[in-house]
């Protein structure tokens, strides 16, 4: 009896040691399985065996035969502390795209069903909704998201379950820089926007004529804000700009101490960049004016929410001559599918679509196009189709030049360009009249789209 127990213990110990010495199980287990498909060709039934990839836990079908609809996951912040304004706009854009796709015959001949999940702007919530969509709702792909911090966690889940994902409005470079095969992005990266700021500001030069081009950045303490500042820290010195940064938690209401601090700086800033989103950016901007920032000496660069003109003038009545970065096309540059989307969006919301509306709309259309071209729900086929995309979207022609076939390292470009649309339209616009409609904004940068005489219009 004792001998049997000793043997059992010895075998257990050896097994544990062997287990400990083997290579750890990778987080992503992709195994080849054989699926039997019944294919009907001109009345003849043929049984074929198809090798496809499957990932434990993921419940999406590999093939669309027998399906009634195709489930596609979508995420947006629909509750606080996320940007509810942004989330609601994305929801409308998804809905328009879904209607258009289904009216045009759906995907692979089947209607699509969008399962929209609220991420609340919380990274942990992003992880949870991705897990649920992939393991319970059986989505074949995921699109959307607004907050970078959420996107950073979502991409790991997309990679774990091998689910093609197109991020819509997440700027943080690391979302694509980790080079997950499943992860694509049509929003600009933080580096793009930081370089956009630096290029335009260096063109404007010494606005207040004090011999120095000095910029103040007020950024939110989130993935978006810190990502923007990190890239500005790198890009600004390369363009001869000096800068100082102030971080704010969301939602901050009272910016008076920081306005006092900016006023007390030794050098008057040539520009103040507001890297704060939503209504907090309105509070900050109006308080800058009320706190004594002189717009003849300092340019105030608003957040892109300032393009909602009615909302902007109500919340920032002193905001004339504010400059606004614009991601995506503008009234003067939109055409083709973009013009149709603008019309549909105006019919529902009554204004020109925000950047994230374009991005949400395009992300779903792009994914539908990729699944159609892939001809199946196999994630590898969808990823290959996305990599080869040359998709005429509302915001422009979307392509992904760097990916599995053309890795960034081999092409000599930074890793964040992996599965990244490199030609996102980036503009600077400026209000020049109090109460002005955003449709009439002047394009001040870049030169090829410019409708003003120079890179800035002075009050």
């Amino acid at each position, binding site marked *: 009896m004792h001998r049997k127990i000793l043997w059992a213990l010895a075998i257990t110990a050896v097994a544990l040691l062997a287990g400990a010495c083997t290579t750890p199980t990778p987080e992503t287990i992709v195994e080849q399985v054989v699926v039997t498909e019944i294919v009907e060709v001109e009345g003849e039934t043929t049984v074929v065996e198809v090798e496809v990839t499957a990932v434990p836990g993921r419940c999406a079908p590999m093939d669309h035969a027998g399906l009634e609809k195709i489930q596609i996951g979508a995420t947006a912040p629909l509750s606080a502390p996320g940007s509810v304004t942004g989330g609601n706009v994305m929801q409308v854009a998804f809905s328009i795209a879904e209607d258009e796709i289904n009216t045009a015959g759906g995907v692979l001949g089947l209607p699509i069903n969008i399962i929209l999940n609220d991420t609340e702007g919380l990274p942990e919530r992003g992880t949870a909704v991705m897990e649920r969509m992939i393991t319970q709702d059986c989505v074949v792909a995921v699109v959307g998201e607004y907050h970078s911090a959420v996107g950073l966690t979502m991409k790991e889940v997309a990679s774990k379950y091998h689910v093609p994902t197109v991020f819509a409005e997440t700027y943080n470079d690391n979302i694509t820089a980790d080079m997950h095969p499943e992860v694509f992005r049509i929003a600009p990266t933080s580096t793009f926007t930081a370089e956009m700021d630096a290029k335009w500001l260096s063109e404007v030069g010494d606005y207040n004529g004090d011999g120095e081009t000095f910029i103040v950045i007020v950024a939110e303490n989130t993935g978006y804000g810190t990502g923007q500042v990190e890239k500005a820290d790198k890009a600004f010195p390369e363009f001869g700009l000096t800068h100082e940064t102030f971080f704010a*938690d969301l939602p901050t209401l009272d910016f008076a101490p920081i306005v006092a601090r900016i006023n007390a700086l030794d050098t008057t800033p040539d520009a103040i960049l507001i890297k704060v989103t939503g209504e907090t950016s309105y509070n900050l901007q109006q308080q800058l004016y009320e706190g004594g920032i002189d717009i003849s000496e300092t340019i105030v660069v608003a957040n892109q929410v300032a393009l909602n003109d009615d909302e902007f003038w109500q919340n920032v009545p002193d905001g004339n001559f504010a400059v606004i970065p614009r991601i995506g096309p503008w009234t003067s540059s939109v055409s083709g599918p973009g013009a149709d989307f603008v019309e549909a969006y105006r019919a529902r919301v009554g204004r020109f679509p925000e950047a994230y509306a374009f991005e949400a709309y395009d992300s779903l259309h792009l994914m539908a196009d990729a699944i159609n071209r892939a001809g199946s729900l196999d994630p590898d086929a969808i990823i290959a189709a996305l990599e080869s995309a040359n998709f005429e979207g509302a915001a422009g022609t979307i392509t992904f030049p760097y990916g599995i076939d053309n890795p960034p390292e081999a092409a000599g470009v930074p890793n964040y360009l992996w599965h990244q649309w490199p030609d996102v339209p980036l503009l600077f616009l400026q209000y020049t009249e109090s109460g002005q409609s955003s449709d009439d904004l002047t394009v001040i940068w870049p030169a090829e789209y410019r409708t003003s005489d120079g890179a800035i219009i002075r009050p």
Partner: protein
Amino acid sequence: MLIFDQCIESIAYLATLLTNGLIMGIIYALMALGLTLIFSVLGIVNFSHGELYMLGGFAAFFLLDTFEGLNPILAIIFAGIVTFVIGAVFERIFLRPMHEGKVQRTGEYAILVTFGFAFFLQYLTVATIGPFPFKASRFLDMVIKPLFGVITVFQTRVVAAAIALVLIAILLWFIQRTWTGRGLRAVSQDKDAAAVTGINPLRMNNFAFGLGAALAGMSGAVLVQVFSWTFNVGIPAASKSYVVIVLGGMGSIPGALLGGLIVGAVESLGTGCFPDPSRGLAYQSAFGLVIFALVLLIRPQGLFGRKL
């Protein structure tokens, strides 16, 4: 450097921070008064205080938006009436059973029911008004020059603080000089003794909750011209109010006033004088919480609270 050098070298800079901090403090005090009134009479913390504040702002905004040129004072009174009615009805339906002995574990019940009411009001607002920010026009269209030529103040806040001071004065007069006010004070001190003298504690509970809600609503109405107004604007306001009333002493009106001023001044000076310019604003709420923690350690009942 332990402190931003301007805080030592420039009196004007320090005075600007302090003045703006005290102005914010008056606004914090008004926010917190309703909360402390409800606590002193009903003995509960109203977790829907921020949402009543939010509703008051929206009530004033939509009235001013509908009737262009309307005197803002009327909008503030309207906001007070709307939130008073909402508060009184809520108290009658959901809190009265607690005081009639029909609810067990009243402490937990009060927390849950006021939290639930807060979520209900928030999501009802999103569903009906939407998540987009609104803001009323300035109540007074005038320019305030820098005080003594160097202290820059914010016009809308000065107007809000002035109205807040008037409202606080009216409240103090009401509490001290009227029969109902004395009744509220009596119930807050001893319900049974108050009942013996002919005061109906249940009626006072209802009135106190309505009045607390009206104070929250009127403070929202005063501030809807200062800050962008959304369905979730009440969350930071409420959390600030909790700090203020615990600091001043739960249930103490003078405590709420002093607590508001201290929190406003400390937050402003802390943010403006923190040595790392990039982090001062990120720690804004933390500065108030440090004072809050210190007071709790040294004087747990708060500045004006009854000894625990």
